[in-house]
């Protein structure tokens, strides 16, 4: 790490060392540019490594193993599994630290020609940022500051202790009861994982279905699966108040009142904005920093990638970073196509999708043909007692428009199509 008090000049400054920032910095340096990477926290990796994909997938792996070992009577396996929750949390920590030591650390990036600095960046003008007492001059700047949990405005929420994806992986004991506000991917994945581990879970969803961005059929399948596992789901939930009681957190909804030991808020994301951004004239809105398809902000020297620009909020949308690097360093007019980016929700059953949904194609009045196979027609799935389906929508010439896979290893199957 550099600690010089002098002004520093770079061809490219990247602010934020999450998925987008790390890709931008490494790619820029690989192309031969002089690159500075500035990260507000003491460690690299961002939301995905420390609060998102990695810890959640590690938790889900333990949860599925525990659940399956206790629910394998149909295939002749009778066991009474025991849970060591501390060991589950250690597995999560080990996974994160392995990745940190393997490639998400200062030394790894400095070896690849990136100068890494830690501190909060504040914009001074369209090519200058301050970090503590250091002044950084950059011919081009890429902002990749990510996002944080969006906390809804609910009466009494501020008076109770609640979890988010930033704190849930630090739990010391398995909650007996857990209420999740939010029925999107984070709420469903974490809610189901804790239910598999033995918590009594309730999911409150303000809309009429879970996973509203997926096909309605997918939402229905997941809803039934979660209910079958004993998870209480309240759709169209209208929460009127939240308060703390001796038994835990009391959540009052129009439908009923729930008391639970822990409360998880999973109601979406809000963009992280660097200090001084608006003051220097970068246009922002409620979703984040405004960018065009080339990831350019309203100032020609500044680009914004990842969650902070309010576009698709996935780790793998870090491909935006490469588009920004190509535009900023080489002047190649590359654009980022958000329309067919894949996503996966690691519930059981697993769900994976890319492209427009049927509803979207219908609204565009686009003709499409449906090709579908159910897992009951796939011998391997039958032998493993897995249910689900693969459905591909094509245009009239047979070109793939979109695909949905539901069932075991859905994310891996989708990768073969994308």
């Amino acid at each position, binding site marked *: 790490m550099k600690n010089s008090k002098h002004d520093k000049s770079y061809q490219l400054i990247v602010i934020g060392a999450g998925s987008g920032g790390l*890709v931008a910095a490494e790619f820029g340096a690989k192309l*031969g*540019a002089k690159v500075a990477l500035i990260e507000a926290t003491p460690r690299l990796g961002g939301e995905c490594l420390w609060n998102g994909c990695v810890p959640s997938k590690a938790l889900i792996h333990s949860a599925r193993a525990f659940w399956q070992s206790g629910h394998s009577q149909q295939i002749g396996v009778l066991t009474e599994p025991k849970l060591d929750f501390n060991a589950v949390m250690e597995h999560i920590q080990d996974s994160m630290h392995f990745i940190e030591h393997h490639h998400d650390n200062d030394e790894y990036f400095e070896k690849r020609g990136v100068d890494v600095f830690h501190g909060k960046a504040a914009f001074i003008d369209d090519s200058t940022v301050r970090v503590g007492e250091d002044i950084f001059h950059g*011919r081009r700047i890429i902002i990749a500051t990510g996002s944080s949990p969006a906390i809804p405005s609910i009466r009494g929420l501020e008076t109770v202790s609640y979890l988010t994806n930033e704190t849930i992986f630090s739990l010391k004991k398995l909650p007996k009861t857990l209420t999740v506000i939010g029925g999107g991917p984070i709420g469903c994945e974490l809610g189901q994982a804790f239910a598999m581990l033995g918590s009594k879970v309730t999911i409150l969803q303000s809309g009429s279905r879970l996973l509203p961005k997926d096909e309605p059929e997918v939402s229905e399948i997941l809803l039934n699966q979660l209910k079958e596992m004993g998870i209480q789901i309240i759709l169209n939930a209208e929460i009127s108040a939240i308060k703390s009681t001796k038994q835990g957190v009391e959540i009052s909804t129009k439908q009923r009142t729930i008391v639970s030991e822990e409360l998880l808020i999973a109601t979406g994301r809000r963009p992280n904005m660097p200090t001084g951004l608006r003051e220097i004239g970068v246009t922002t809105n409620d979703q984040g920093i405004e960018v065009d398809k080339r990831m350019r902000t309203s100032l020609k020297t500044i680009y914004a990638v990842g969650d902070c620009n309010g576009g698709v909020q996935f780790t793998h949308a870090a*491909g935006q970073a490469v588009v920004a690097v*190509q535009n900023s360093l*080489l002047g190649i007019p590359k654009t980022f196509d958000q329309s067919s980016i894949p996503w996966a929700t690691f519930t059981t059953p697993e769900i994976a999708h890319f492209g427009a949904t049927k509803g979207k194609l219908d609204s565009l009045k686009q003709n499409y043909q449906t090709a579908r196979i159910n897992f009951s027609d796939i011998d391997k799935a039958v032998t493993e007692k897995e249910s689900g389906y693969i459905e591909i929508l094509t245009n009239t010439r047979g070109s793939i428009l979109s695909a949905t896979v539901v069932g075991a290893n859905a*994310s*891996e199957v989708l*990768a073969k199509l994308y």
Partner: protein
Amino acid sequence: MRDLRVPLKDAASVMQAYPTFSLGLKQLSANVTMDKMTDGIIGWLIKRVIKLRLG
């Protein structure tokens, strides 16, 4: 045999991927493509373009 390299735009888009094993293969292809791209005369040309554009 299929060439392990992928077009640059694809290499770019799969440098980071959602957590699956399959996409590790695409990432491998991307890395190979990047190494080829930044070696030799093409790499030299890219560096010249950056130098000329950004000083």
